[in-house]
């Protein structure tokens, strides 16, 4: 369980997160949706402890950061580190022994190549494999499906189901609504640094149509495509 109380974050004069209050339960996969700049990544970085913030964040296991697998939107890789070394680095950092790496390479990544030469999707899969091998209790998956091929999409969906089964706390963000509705137990809508709506499984379709209505409006007509 992770509980966020009164979380606010400013960059200079710009208020990015406004008094956020939310609870992420164990065994529940929680989706966060919002437009670009709504504050999703900032919220995740605050939960991870990578940003200073006002407010409180509680978790049942402390310190939270040592048990948190954080898959970033754009994972960073050093220019000359191999996939294998990247996995080893992340496991070493959490004192986890990396055993039987070949059988755990479920995305068939070329682990002896430099990770910087990987495609966007391969980088995402490598970073996801690394946070899974760390044996975390909490997961923040920021855009886990970004740039990933259809086969790996299926595998990632199954991984998320497995994490739920194992009673892990999972937070996902995605710009593709179907990936959230397939994987999440609840979805929270973040707008301009505030949660404005929360829906559970049965209400996903309603939320999607509401979002479409708000997002699209008359924008396509205004474009006057000819």
């Amino acid at each position, binding site marked *: 369980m992770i509980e966020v109380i009164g979380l606010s974050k400013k960059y200079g004069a710009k208020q990015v997160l406004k008094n956020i209050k939310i609870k992420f339960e164990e065994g529940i996969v929680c989706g966060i949706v919002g437009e670009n700049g709504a504050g999703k990544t900032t919220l995740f970085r605050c939960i991870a402890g990578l940003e*200073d913030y006002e407010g409180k964040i509680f978790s049942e296991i402390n310190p939270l950061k040592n048990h948190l697998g954080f898959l*970033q939107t754009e994972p960073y890789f*050093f220019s000359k580190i191999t996939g294998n070394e990247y996995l080893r680095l992340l496991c070493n950092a*959490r004192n986890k022994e990396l055993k039987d790496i070949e059988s755990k390479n479920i995305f068939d990544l070329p682990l002896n190549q430099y990770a910087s030469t990987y495609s966007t999707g391969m980088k995402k899969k490598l970073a996801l494999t690394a946070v899974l091998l760390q044996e975390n209790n909490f997961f923040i998956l920021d855009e886990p499906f970004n740039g990933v091929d259809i086969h790996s999409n299926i595998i990632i969906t199954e991984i998320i189901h497995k994490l739920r089964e194992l009673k892990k706390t999972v937070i996902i963000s995605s710009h593709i609504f179907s990936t959230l509705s397939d994987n999440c137990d609840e979805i929270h809508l973040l707008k301009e640094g505030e949660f404005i709506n929360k829906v559970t499984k049965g209400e996903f379709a309603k939320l999607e149509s509401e979002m479409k209505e708000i997002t699209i409006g008359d924008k396509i007509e205004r474009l006057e495509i000819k």
Partner: protein
Amino acid sequence: MIGYFILQYRMTNRKLNDFGIGPVIGYVLLTAGFIGLSVFLFYKTAFAEYIYITVALAFVSNLSEIKRNDFLKACFSDKKFKLLRISENLVVTIPFVCFLFFKQLLLSPVILIGISVLLGLTSFKTTLHFTVPTPFFKRPFEFSVGFRNTFYLFIISYLLTFFALFYDNFNLGVFALLLVIVIPFSYYVRPENDYFVWIFNSSSKQFLFHKIKTGLFFSSMLSLPIALVLGSSYPANVEVIFLSISLGYFFLITMILAKYASYPYEIGLPEVIIIVASVFFPPLLLAIIPYFFIKSTKRLTRILG
């Protein structure tokens, strides 16, 4: 095209500001440093002319990197692109050419200009396709990445050691040893992305001890073979070898701590001044190391808790 050079100028000014010095002071220091190092090089060795051209071409060839050139090609017409590439290569070359003329050398600056113009018309990958193997796979990051960027310098160092023994030149051997000790300092110059500090489940002190332990162990793997060979060939000079290695360890620790004392920013000017002062007066390290350690601990606590 003028807009491109103005942009480069502004970006350089920003880098100098980030480094903690104003652009004017920065340019004065860079000019003074360049002249100082050039004079020193020509004073020290008879091969200075060749080393000088090699260094100049290394700077110029960096500008030929394929992705960078693809971007410029997409921005400018073919004619403007070629003109721009030749111009920027010459901008980099001019200080070297001027100094060579000052040294009354005529052929080498002309060759340098010629190669720079030719390089302006070519683009190539400055990174290798194959994975360079390293002995540091157990604890990857600084040494595995750094070694891959500098492995050719180690080949040169080991060759120099061979020549030192072959020609019975102990000083050359010590130079090779110092080179192997000093190269890894560069692995700690740039701060890593905060994610790679955050992932560690250790306190800031444990994190620093881990980094120091790994650094010393891997540095020893690279330098001890030369030290042992030199020690067995020149037993009377073991003290010099021991002193070189010991000082190298102290400076490596200083570099590691200096990096995290400024983290997440690049090593600042005050740290650079302190390190330079300790090069001239090494006993200062005994005060600098604890000072950087305390500062690093404070910096890292925000991320590591």
